[in-house]
């Protein structure tokens, strides 16, 4: 009998994490992974055309990149869930895609979010009933390590790339890292990619001065992490000569999340209950940046993101209490980048002039 046809699995584009899903699908589940193209305006246009108008922008990009994955030949889509409207997005996306006439298998993780770990095994069994526990467990652990590496590299990158003495060195090292991860077949490939990138980073000459400007970036989970969605926000700020810090990433929020019950006591002056999936963490991080004497905060959300709108008054209080300027940015599908650039530049000028006076 011929070998059973492998599934062609795809996952919506999310920041740099798709390589992790690819690794798990190929090495753990022994199936084929389909990598759709990086998101472009076409992705957003496709998503905006078929999505409800008032839904938040991340749904539109996710839907668009699902369509691009199906166009690239995927026959199975995986969709994640979250504790805001995202919990419902998996179902909504499936309905829209089926109405459009696409045929595919769909794994909506929201259907398995019972809180019991063994239910996730059921989800995996759906993708490959013959999946073996040992390679799968191993690939799972490698994948988690990969996420940590990606987050560490990105975080180092944005804290330093604004100060390189010859333009583009950091970006080249980062691109090399992403390409290396794309070829990784086992744990030592992953470790090598990370080691090579970090040692290259450390060799790049930088000129930081004694008191570099430091800005903390926080906000809605998807938009704040995905550079297509936030129109290269962190890069634009870093390019002005700023250390850009961001706590929000998959390692911090999902793998090593301290949990609301540990975070709430640290922000009890501002907030005592959970307001949304990332609200507690964002309030805590804003307060921490303020206490550490950062020069400014940038709060990012997509239009209509209720949890992030809700924390804005709290951030305003933190801003007033600690005298830290906060720039609030709202992203929508029809945003040009001229207005964004004006606001970022003005914010930079403000914190820079302010720092000179304070010091």
């Amino acid at each position, binding site marked *: 009998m011929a070998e059973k046809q492998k599934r062609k699995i795809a996952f919506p584009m999310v920041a740099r994490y798709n390589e992790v899903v690819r690794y798990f699908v190929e090495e753990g589940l022994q199936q084929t992974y389909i990598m759709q193209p990086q998101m*472009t*305006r076409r992705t957003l246009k496709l998503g905006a055309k078929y999505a409800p108008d008032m839904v938040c922008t991340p749904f539109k990009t996710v839907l668009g990149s699902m369509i691009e994955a199906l166009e690239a030949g995927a026959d199975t889509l995986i969709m994640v869930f979250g504790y805001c409207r995202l919990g419902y997005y998996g179902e909504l996306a499936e309905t829209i895609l089926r109405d459009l006439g696409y045929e595919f298998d769909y794994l909506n993780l929201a259907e398995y979010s019972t809180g019991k770990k063994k239910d996730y095994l059921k989800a995996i069994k759906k993708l490959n009933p013959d999946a073996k526990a040992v390679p799968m467990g191993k690939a799972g652990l490698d994948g988690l390590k990969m996420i940590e590496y990606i987050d560490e590299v990105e975080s180092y990158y944005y804290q330093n790339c604004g100060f390189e003495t010859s333009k583009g060195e950091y970006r080249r090292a980062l691109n090399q890292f992403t390409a290396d991860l794309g070829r990784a077949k086992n744990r030592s490939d992953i470790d090598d990619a990370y080691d090579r990138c970090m040692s290259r980073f450390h060799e790049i000459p930088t000129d930081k001065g004694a008191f570099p400007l430091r800005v903390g970036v926080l906000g809605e989970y998807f938009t704040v992490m995905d550079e297509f969605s936030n129109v290269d926000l962190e890069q634009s700020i870093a390019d002005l000569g700023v250390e850009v810090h961001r706590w929000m990433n998959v390692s911090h929020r999902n793998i090593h999340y301290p949990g609301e019950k540990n975070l709430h006591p640290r922000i009890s002056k501002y907030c005592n209950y959970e307001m949304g999936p990332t609200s507690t963490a964002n309030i805590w991080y804003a307060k921490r940046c303020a206490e550490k004497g950062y020069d400014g905060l940038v709060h990012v959300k997509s239009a209509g993101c209720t949890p992030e709108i809700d924390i804005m008054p709290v951030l305003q209080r933190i*801003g007033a209490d600690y005298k830290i300027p906060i720039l609030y940015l709202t992203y929508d599908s029809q945003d040009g980048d001229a*207005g964004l650039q*004006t606001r970022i*530049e*003005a914010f930079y000028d*403000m914190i820079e*002039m302010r720092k000179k006076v304070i010091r």
Partner: protein
Amino acid sequence: MEDVYMGIDVGSISTKGVIITKENKILSSEYIWTEGNPIGAVKKLVRLLEKQFDKENYRIVATGTTGSARKLVGTVLSATVVKNEITAHAVGTTTFHPDVRTILEIGGQDSKIILVENGVAVDYAMNTLCAAGTGAFLSSQSARLGIPVEDMGEIAVKSQHPTQIAARCTVFAESDLVHKIQVGHTKEDIVAGLCQAVVGNYLNNVGKGKKIQSPVVFQGGVSKNIGVVKAFENQLGCPIIVDPDGHLMGAIGAAILARRNKERRVFNFDVEDMEFITREINCGGCPNNCEIICVYRNGEMIDSWGNRCERGDVAARKAANPNAAAV
């Protein structure tokens, strides 16, 4: 021969220019309409500034541009500084009013609030989605009422009982206004109501959550409307300072920033005779299809922008290989 500095502020509605000395004395200043043609407006502006300018004793050594067309005009004028309008306004205003705490600014298409402490900006906000509460709203309504927009302020202050007009949104305000006209409210009351609507909209959107402290300086084109100034004084309960040069503050700020910057490039008014054109091309390097603007001086490309990656860096490619076919 004394060194002086030029600042140009090209907004959506009006184009402003000044030439100032080291002591912030204004040598020439001009205010004209942009009329949807920033390059044409700036060439006209430069010609008008030149007429007032004493070339025998002064020399322009640095040029700053600001406003929404700052990049385009900065390229055309070979400016030494291209700065966003928020910084330019903050710098200009704090130079002339060192003790200012709050700067209110209402222009043609946008409005801003800048909070100042110890002479530096510490917080700002800018209108995002809606142009209600800007000059464009007032000028479209003045056309409906058949009143020149310049006279609106004088008419508004005559009113004893300003009409209540819904100010949340331009579209709602307009239908409310039509209704109030048809039921017989007088013109003065309606104009005064409009001025209050602009102020209400501004304070509820741009000024939301901001602590407005005295001294307050109000500028931008709308600050010339005495009706709006009075409405601000009523709602904020403090005196509002309107600088006679308030409409030029962005341009003055740009000139001061050009002076503070180290770069020097003598400006000799020859742009008047040059021909500038812009062309928009779609990159086509990937499905993102960035819209790239190319600027040509006398038929030669001098700059391009709008690309999100190096594939679309048309000007750099052109510079690397000048003999390639024109893009």
